[in-house]
């Protein structure tokens, strides 16, 4: 093998380990060979570079003859701006929903007030209502959400019956008269025992409807302290009141 071929193989990396060592040993001794290797390296690199430029040039020329590639149809979810916009919207909605904020008591009343269910004389479906007592009629009206009628009928009944007081109070609340409901419910709470838990809750609710923020707060704290079944609701409202 002549020196030129040897240099080529050396630069190609195709010499065996022994050949390479022998060659490198020669290079270290022979300045002339060393210069030849450097020249060859340079020329090869220059030829490669010129070739690359030529290929790129021909590819560019080819590109110019080709029809433009149609702009890709970007699926909506890949559109970065839309993604960002969607993200911001979602964040805003979450923030709106989760942001602790003060609500108006009346609004809280509307959200949380539910007339106490009729557990005294429940209306049984399919059974002909033949009980024409005032009490039965009153509860029927209550069940049918005819609170005006229910109030009239409940008022005919004994004001010594705590159940009547509770449902009359609820009827007043449901018909938007918390001022009339409040004394009745307080009476249930203070003078009787059976419906204390319920009465306490509806007292608090009455204060909400009356926009009595401070009194509502105190009443709700009592509900929470009692550990009644209204506790979690009361706590929720307290958080929103603050």
């Amino acid at each position, binding site marked *: 093998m002549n020196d030129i071929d040897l240099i080529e193989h050396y630069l190609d990396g195709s010499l065996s380990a022994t050949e390479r060592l022998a060659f490198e040993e020669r290079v270290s001794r022979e300045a002339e060979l060393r210069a030849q290797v450097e020249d060859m390296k*340079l020329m090869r690199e220059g*030829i490669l570079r*010129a070739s*690359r430029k*030529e*290929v790129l040039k021909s*590819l560019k020329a080819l590109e110019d003859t080709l029809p433009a*590639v149609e*702009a*890709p149809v970007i699926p909506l979810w890949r559109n970065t701006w839309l993604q960002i916009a969607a993200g911001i919207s979602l964040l805003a909605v979450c923030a709106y929903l989760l942001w602790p904020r003060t609500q108006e008591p009346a609004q809280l009343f509307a959200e949380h007030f539910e007339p106490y269910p009729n557990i005294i004389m429940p209306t049984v479906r399919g059974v002909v209502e033949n009980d024409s007592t005032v009490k039965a009629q009153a509860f029927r009206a209550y069940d049918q959400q005819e609170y005006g009628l229910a109030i009239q009928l409940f008022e005919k009944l004994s004001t010594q019956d705590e159940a009547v007081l509770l449902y009359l109070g609820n009827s007043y609340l449901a018909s938007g008269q918390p001022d009339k409901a409040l004394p009745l419910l307080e009476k249930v709470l203070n003078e009787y025992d059976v419906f204390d838990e319920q009465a306490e809750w509806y007292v608090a609710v009455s204060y909400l409807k009356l926009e009595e923020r401070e009194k509502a707060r105190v009443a709700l704290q009592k509900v929470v302290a009692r550990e009644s079944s209204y506790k979690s609701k009361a706590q929720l409202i307290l958080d929103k009141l603050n």
Partner: protein
Amino acid sequence: MSSEYSTIINELKQGGSRALEAVYVRYRPEFIQWLQGRLGCEAELAKDIYQQTILTFYENVQSGKLVTLTSQVKTYLFSIGRNKYYEAVREKAKQEKAKDWQVEHDSVPESLLQLVETCLEKLGEPCRTLLMQFYFHKRSMEQLTELFAYKNVDTAKNQKYKCLERLRKLVKSNGQLIADNE
């Protein structure tokens, strides 16, 4: 090795840059759409990157660097393209002068490489093409014999030596001039 790949390798080894243009056209729409759509690359840059990608692919095939390819050619091109795109983005970010490609210079000075390129032009044909076909396109002596219609392989070998020697002398004399001017 995927059959798609071995077919392309054979075509490139036989057809050289002609075959490369076929490859270029074949993967072009998908690649450019992918670059623009998926990576958000600008249309002009996408073309440049595709051209450089095809060049790198070609060099890797011809140099034998890419012996086996278990994935599809497309996948391989995409992986080259992705790197080139990120490289381009980094370069842009660094506000550096745009480079056409990354060459392992191996500490060969830029001015000397320029000199060789100029001398290669001066060298004229068939030497210029012969050297490029041999060193860059990796044509075998048999292929060169056929390509240049030489009598036999030995003639081709001889011709290559002569061309290389002429180039070396050109570089030396022009390099001398540069050295004298300095």
